[in-house]
């Protein structure tokens, strides 16, 4: 032992490197051993739900992350607490769990995704029905010619999706860029008051 201490005092740099490497190797081995020895078969449903959730780990649902929310769902929590997943996410969860899709719970925030229509041009038959439906004339094309969407004009109202006879219109999420980014104002005070008030009901008689 004292021999080792003498050596460490003589070569402090090598002693430091060796100690750190040994420490890490030892702990790595310990963790590797533990992960095999204490392996737990995960709940497959939790993993499936977790795969549907958007993995933003935003915590808006009230849980520390997507995985804990997935576990909470398997334990019977509501499926409408994930704003980043939005209505599409709720629909996917409803399909997976074979329950009714319910609207997003506004208490946990609002879905804030702007979408843009996109026509899969290879499938477009040129019927002009979407052109007639578009309220802002953002779709370009002529009869029996391929149509396309002017992305900068599209408001994402998805009115064109319904009339399309071949279902070749997709609503794609618009990536946020410098032009489309907007400052998120803090939510205004809710209309419910702790103490009943007749403020704003006009003049008292």
């Amino acid at each position: 032992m004292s021999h080792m201490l003498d050596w460490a005092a003589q070569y402090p740099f090598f002693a430091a490197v060796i100690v750190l490497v040994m420490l890490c190797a030892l702990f790595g081995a310990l963790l590797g051993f533990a992960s095999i020895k204490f392996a737990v078969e995960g709940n497959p449903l939790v993993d499936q739900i977790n795969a549907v959730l958007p993995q933003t780990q935003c915590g808006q649902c009230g849980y520390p992350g997507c995985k804990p929310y997935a576990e909470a769902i398997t334990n019977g929590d509501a499926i409408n607490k994930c704003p980043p997943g939005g209505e599409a996410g709720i629909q996917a969860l409803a399909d997976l769990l074979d329950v009714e899709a319910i609207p997003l719970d506004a208490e946990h925030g609002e879905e804030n995704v702007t979408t843009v229509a996109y026509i899969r041009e290879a499938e477009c038959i040129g019927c002009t029905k979407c052109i007639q439906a578009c309220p802002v004339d953002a779709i370009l094309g002529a009869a029996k010619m391929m149509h396309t969407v002017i992305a900068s004009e599209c408001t994402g109202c998805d009115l064109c999706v319904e009339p399309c006879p071949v279902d070749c219109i997709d609503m794609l999420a618009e990536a946020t860029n410098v032009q489309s980014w907007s400052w998120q104002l803090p939510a205004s005070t809710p209309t419910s008051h702790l103490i009943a008030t007749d403020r704003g009901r006009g003049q008292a008689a």
Partner: protein
Amino acid sequence: MEYLTLLISAILVNNFVLVQFLGLCPFMGVSNKLETAIGMSAATIFVLTLSSICSYLTYAYLLEPLGLEYLDIIAFIVVIAVVVQFTEMVVHKTSPLLHRVLGVFLPLITTNCAVLGVALLNINKQHDFIHSALFGFGAAVGFSLVLILFAAMRERLNVADVPAPFNGAAIGMITAGLMSLAFMGFAGLV
């Protein structure tokens, strides 16, 4: 008596969150619901006590004899991470119930600065083994106390009529500041 003084000092007078401003991220982050705050508190008490013991042992029996005291931060990070991960695996296997309470919070605490702070302060104040364990325990109890109090306040704040510009995090910060002022009042206690 000496141990009691140490405990009170760690819990109230030198409270880690409100007086020393360590571990603020979980303090603001996990205090939305009383239930999660309690889970986080339990996990913190567990991890802090264990990690202060382990880091003391590492320091006293590995780093000090070899004259490598300057490696304390990096060695403690490794030790704490391993201890937390290992206990998480063991708890997951042996006690699913306890894992449900502590589980998700254990990895979160690994990178909590309060944990490393306690380990380093133990060395700084030249605590022995029992003092280290007690100091870690006291620091965690202080953290839990403040976290649970704060979570309870925030649950009430959620239904209060807060002016729009102060909604959400802003009023949380103000509340935390006022709590900190109140805890500074313990300064003369020990």
